[in-house]
């Protein structure tokens, strides 16, 4: 029995309903929000700011530091005790690696940009939502970046390549692989690649090709969210264009 129809009725290349926002945390220097299905990420950026302790400082550039955290009630099942866990530490690290190729902090030697991501609710794909939200927050903070990073959890369920797996699909009783991917939007270069499950090389490459399209959809939402931050901007386009040409 092949996986011919997805558990929630989506098409194979269809992502769950998504919502993206920018500037949702006023205290932060930049903030973002990304919701896909029941997975919901808030991201806040503070910095560039002074980095302590001193030995972490890099005199050539600023650094980016990510902090991934699930709220105690955000998992299916019992309460998650607050505090650092190996899982969140690892995800924080891969977030840093997935974002740092686009971020340019050379203007700010010895400084740090902190990215905090918190989840009120999760249903698979949380590290991908974290990256998509964090990238909105970084852009909103005015951090120089050569491009946006977008992220989607691809996967293969019983032979079918699917975009944006849910928790139920990850737990489907068949051969399943879960492949979180992050891509630089323009070049489609990969900055996050993890996999657990079982997959052939051919299917892996097929999944990554399919990720391009899925990431494009995420990018569109990121862009709309950042544009919506400045309502009425460019309303005087024509007038200004004239002034400039004079």
């Amino acid at each position, binding site marked *: 029995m092949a996986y011919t129809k997805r558990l929630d009725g989506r098409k194979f290349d269809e992502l769950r309903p998504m919502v993206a926002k920018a500037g949702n945390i006023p205290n932060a220097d930049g903030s973002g929000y990304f919701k896909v299905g029941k997975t919901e990420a808030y991201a806040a950026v503070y910095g560039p700011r002074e980095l302590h302790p001193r030995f972490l400082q890099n005199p050539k550039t600023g650094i980016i530091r990510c902090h991934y955290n699930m709220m105690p009630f955000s998992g299916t099942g019992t309460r998650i005790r607050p505090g650092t866990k190996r899982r969140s530490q690892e995800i924080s690290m891969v977030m840093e690696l997935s974002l740092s190729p686009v971020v340019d902090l050379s203007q700010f030697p010895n400084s740090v940009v902190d990215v905090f991501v918190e989840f009120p609710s999760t249903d698979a794909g949380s590290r991908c939502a974290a990256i998509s939200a964090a990238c909105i927050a970084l852009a909103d903070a005015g*951090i120089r970046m050569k491009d946006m990073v977008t992220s989607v959890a691809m996967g293969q369920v019983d032979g079918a390549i699917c975009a944006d797996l849910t928790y139920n699909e990850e737990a489907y009783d068949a051969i399943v692989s879960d492949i979180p991917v992050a891509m630089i939007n323009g070049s489609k270069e990969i900055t996050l690649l993890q996999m657990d499950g079982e997959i052939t090389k051919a299917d892996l490459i097929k999944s990554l090709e399919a990720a391009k399209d899925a990431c494009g959809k995420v990018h569109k939402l990121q862009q709309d969210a950042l544009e919506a931050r400045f309502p009425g901007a460019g309303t005087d386009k024509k007038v200004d264009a004239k002034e400039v040409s004079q």
Partner: protein
Amino acid sequence: MSSEITVEHRAVVIPGQVLAQGMDYLPGEETYREGEQIRSKVLGLANVNGRVMKVTPLSGPYIPKVDDVIIAQVSDILMSGWRVQTGTPYSAMLNVRDATQRFVRKGEDLSRILEIGDYVVGKITNVTSQNLIDITMKEPGLFKINSGRVIQVAPQKVPRMIGKRGSMIGLIKRYTGCKMVVGQNGTILIDGNAEREELAQKAIRMIEEFAHQSGLTERIEDFLKSVVGEVPETAAPSGDRRPRDNRSRGSDDSSKPSKPFVQRNADTPTENTDKAVDEKGSEEKK
């Protein structure tokens, strides 16, 4: 391959967004070329100026520049001066000899001159490649803040706060009678009677909210007029009329002529505030 511009002038663009295709166009500030494409480095407004593609950032930290007047807060007292917070990731140094005219004995308690938490209006005298910053208070218009309130706005919005030739800040000062200082780091001092300080603060918040829109000066004037009624321009010279005599009503203290930076802006008349940002940027390049 034909060249074309792929964004509208003044449109909001995001990092990585393609602004123009082809070799006929050149990358300007906050943009870069990748192959045939010119792309944005930041979230900002596209600025199409002839063949040069630029982006004016809409957010981000304050970048310290020599001769900028800023409002900074003392965070530590050192051997021969103070460490002050500038609203950048980097603190600045204020040396004793740059802080006061009077002779300071070796070993004298510096907290009697400036205490931790005090705000000063200072001017940046040096910025190194590693962003070590020196500031001074020993110029006219630079002083320790003793009264009033201090509020923070995004540094990108400072040009709009000041307005062309200081028109915006002049307007608020005229209608509220407050002494005001707009630091280039986005820290603003408002000092006057309590009700008028509140009014000035409201005006600032309005500018902040609508900074990326046009027709702001009229809007602010209408607002101020609706609260305090007509105030003749002679009540306090506005930046528009006499840009070189920019003393506000609040700053009677003749030893401290206020607002040298309004004059600085007044000295570089600009078409609109976006250009003000651009011109500052190009100064930086030279």
